[in-house]
Structures are given as structure tokens and as C-alpha cells.
């Protein structure tokens, strides 16, 4: 194994998992957006490194897209939206931060056990990449499930998306077309969610998901 190359790829993918944990730890909205920007930067670095060691130059473009859109455009836009809508800036977690972190640890262990068992015989770099990517996806899902604030759920969805990109770059040979379509689907989803948030705000005066539940006739 090319020792140092493997180690740096390992380092970057592991950092992505670490930043996912940092996302779970945040309880202020602006800090959450900053950490999400960091998440996207680490993803970009990881994809760029994969491009270097796999010798796949189209992945550099993927890295640039991730850096531009996910690390700069989207956080800035979300920041503006928060200011404009006057969204509640504290994030309440269901069950407390400690419990969420413990569940996160369990999910990471589960993702690793499953991936390592299911991919016997594959190359070690790809296996490790997939294990980390599955962890990031599960952590993103955990974030969506345990947060009451709609913006933090959107960020959770975005981090889940980052995990999928990591998985795709680990498996060699993902064409650029797929990445463009993926990027555009994110944008469309983002626009849709943004529009819904504006309309929700007009009608219900809050984007706290628990308040939405009240109007569905369910009690929180």
C-alpha cells in the first residue's frame, strides 16, 4: 500500500466524520452554518486528494463545485435567509446533546461493522472510504431526526449529500455528468425548500417544526 497516500486519504475522510460530529454538537444556528461550510471544505479537499492519487482529473472539477457551491454559496444564502426570516436561532435537540453524541458513536460503529463485513475482498482504500461515507450519511440522518429547527434539518440533508459524494469518489470512475446532475438536484431541492420555508413563514409565522405539528392536529 502506498503508505502516505493512504494515510492522508484516511485523514481527510476521518476528518469529515469528525466534522459531522461537530455539526451534531452545535446549538447555535450561525455556528452550524460555519461548521457546515467547513464540512464542505473538507469534502472538497478529500475529493481533490482522491483526484490526485487516482489520477482522475475530472474529480478536480467535482472538488471545485463542492468548494464553490457548498462551502460558499449555500451557507451565505442560508445565512441571508435566516436574517430575513428572523428565524429562531437556538437549536433544540430532542433528548439532549450527550444522548445524540452517544447515538452518533453507535451509528459510526454500526456503519463500520456493516461496510467491513459486506466488502470483503475489495481494496482497503475503497472499503475505508465507504465505511466513512456511510457513517457521514447516517450522522446526517441522525441530525435530521433529532433537531426541531427546520434549517438544521436542511443542513443535515446537505451533510448527508456530502457523504454520498464521498462514497461516489471512493469508488473509482464516477463520470462528471452524474456530478452535475447531483449538483443541480441539490440546487433544486434547496430552492424548493427555500420557497416552502418562505410560504410556511407567511402562513404560520415560525419554522419551528414542533409548531408545524401543532397545526397538523398532533400534540408534541
Amino acid at each position, binding site marked *: *500500500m502506498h*503508505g*502516505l497516500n*493512504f*494515510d*492522508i486519504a*484516511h*485523514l481527510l475522510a*476521518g*476528518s469529515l*466524520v*469528525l466534522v459531522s*460530529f461537530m455539526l451534531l*454538537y452545535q446549538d447555535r444556528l450561525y455556528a452550524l452554518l460555519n461548521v457546515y461550510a467547513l464540512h464542505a471544505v473538507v469534502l472538497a479537499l478529500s475529493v481533490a486528494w482522491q483526484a490526485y492519487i487516482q489520477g482522475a482529473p475530472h474529480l478536480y472539477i467535482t472538488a471545485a463545485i463542492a468548494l464553490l457551491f457548498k462551502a460558499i454559496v449555500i451557507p451565505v444564502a442560508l445565512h441571508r435567509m435566516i436574517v430575513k426570516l428572523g428565524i429562531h436561532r437556538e437549536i433544540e435537540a430532542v433528548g439532549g*446533546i*450527550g444522548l445524540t*453524541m452517544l447515538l452518533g*458513536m453507535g451509528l*459510526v*460503529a454500526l456503519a*463500520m461493522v456493516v461496510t*467491513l463485513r459486506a466488502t470483503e475482498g475489495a481494496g*482497503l482504500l475503497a*472499503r*475505508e472510504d465507504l*465505511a*466513512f461515507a456511510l457513517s457521514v450519511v447516517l450522522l446526517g440522518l441522525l441530525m435530521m431526526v433529532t433537531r426541531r429547527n427546520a434549517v438544521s434539518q436542511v443542513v443535515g440533508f446537505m451533510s448527508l449529500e456530502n457523504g454520498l459524494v464521498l462514497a461516489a469518489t471512493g469508488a473509482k470512475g464516477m463520470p462528471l455528468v452524474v456530478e452535475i446532475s447531483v449538483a443541480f438536484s441539490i440546487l433544486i431541492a434547496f430552492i424548493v425548500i427555500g420557497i416552502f420555508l418562505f410560504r410556511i413563514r407567511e402562513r404560520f409565522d415560525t419554522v419551528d417544526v414542533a409548531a408545524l405539528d401543532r397545526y397538523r392536529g398532533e400534540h408534541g
Partner: protein
Amino acid sequence: MTTTLAVQAAQMLLVLGLAPLLVGFVRKVKARLLRRQGPPLIQPYRDLIRLLRKDLVLATSASWLFRAIPYLIFAATWVAAALVPTFATGLMFSWSADLIVIIALLGLARFFLALAGLDVGTSFGGIGSSREVMIASLAEPAMLMIVFTLALAAGSTQLSTMAEYLASGEAGLRFSLGLALIALIIVAIAENARIPVDNPATHLELTMVHEAMVLEYSGRHLALIDLSAELKLLLYVSLIACLFMPWGIAAPDAGLEALLIGVIAYIAKLTAVGFLLAVFETSIAKMRVFRVPEFLGVALMLALLATLLLFVSRSL
């Protein structure tokens, strides 16, 4: 045989001699960063000598245990500090106690310190003891998980073997070791009662943990406890240095030059880490007491993650 014995004895005296100097250096750097002159570097030595010469004032409700505890704490901390490789690995008695034993010896010292806080029967001692055991209840498992990570990577819990493994370069740039380093730094800050966990310079009752437990100590007892605290800081800095900055450390049965290089490298590492500690302490504020468990919880999570991630990496 005699050389290894001499090296071990030299190490025991070296840690005892350097510990107050390290604390003096950290205080001087902090003062300079705050644009003050600061006390001279040898001030901790002067403080110790001054305390040793003073009369002892014991509270009427203090017991024989209160009087014996400073010696116990000093003995446990000194034995632990003597077993951490500083300028040379392969110490003569390194096989008698591995890293788990060193941590347990520090736990023994902390156990008795917490008892000392409760001995006189004041509420300040109680504050210190109860907060100290809360911090310890999270710092110790984090430390043990760090030991697991290192032991699983190096294949042994003996500190000399770990240091040699990490010095040999086989470990490479492993992510788990990076996480373990961050966790170790957090645990070291918590255990040594440094900002952001505890302020070593304050004497405001409600903000202190370590100082609250030793509030009733005076004279030679206080000198021993201060020396033990300084030894503990040196121990943690040496631990970080020998594990994560293993450059220049002398191999076992090395000649005199290698040992001298080891000593110089060690002093350089102490200076560097002391400087970083001072900068770190000056740049952030002390946390509220109940944010400390979250801080230590992060260390525990990082250490646990480091252990789990070891399985994904190269050899395991």
C-alpha cells in the same frame, strides 16, 4: 546494568528538579503575553522553600489522614512521573508499571486529595472534592480509551514499547493517533487544573476545583502538594512529548552522547509545549463548571472514535 540504573535515578531526580521550572516558565510566558514583567523563572522554587520553612497550622478538626495525605500524594505522583520516559526509553523499572498503572497511580493521588478536601469539614473542601470527582469520572475513562488506542496500535501497554513504536515511524500519519492526541491534550488540561477547566491562579472559592480541596493546607504540607501538582503537569507534558514528539529520544543502551541529545531534546520539547500551553491559557476563558463535562465528553468521544477507527486502518 549500572548505566540503566543511573539513567533511571537521573530521570527521577530530573523530573523532580524540572517540575517547578516548567511551571515558572509557563507563568512567565503568560505574564509576558499580558504585557506584565511576571515573576522570575525560579520563583516556584522560592515558594517551595518558603513554605517548607513555615510552621504548620492545622485545623482542630483535621485528622491523622489529613497529615499523611500530602506524603501519599507526593509518593504516588513522583513514582508515576519517574516511570514516564523523558530523555531515554527503556528505563530500568519500566516493566514494573505500564501506562495503565501510571494513570491509576495518578488516580490514587486524586482519591486522597479529594478525601483531604472533605477532612476538615468545610463547605469549600466539599465543593472542590465533588467537582474534582465529577471531572475525574469523565477524564479517566477518556484517558483509558486513549491508552487503548495507543496499546492497540503499538501492541503493548508498556510506555517504553509505545514510545519506541511511535518513534520508529511505522505508525505513519494515522488519523486515530491524531484524535488520540487531541483527546490527550483535553484530558491533560482537565487533570492539571488549567484554564479552561480550572484556574490555577485564582483563589475565588466558587471558581476553583483544585485550590478548593487544598484550602486548609499550609506550610510543608502545602509545599508537597504544590510540588506534586507541578510534577503532574510535567508528567503529562512528558507523556505528550514521548508519545507524539518522539524525536531525539535516546534508545535503550545508548551511549552518553545519545543521552545528552535526549536531554537537550527533552528540554526543548518542554519549552515548546510550555509556551503553547501559556498561549492557549491566555487566549480562552475559563468555562462554567457544567460545561466541563461536555468538554470532557468530547475527549471521551474522540478517544472512543479513535479506537473504533483503528480497526478501519491498515493493519488491524
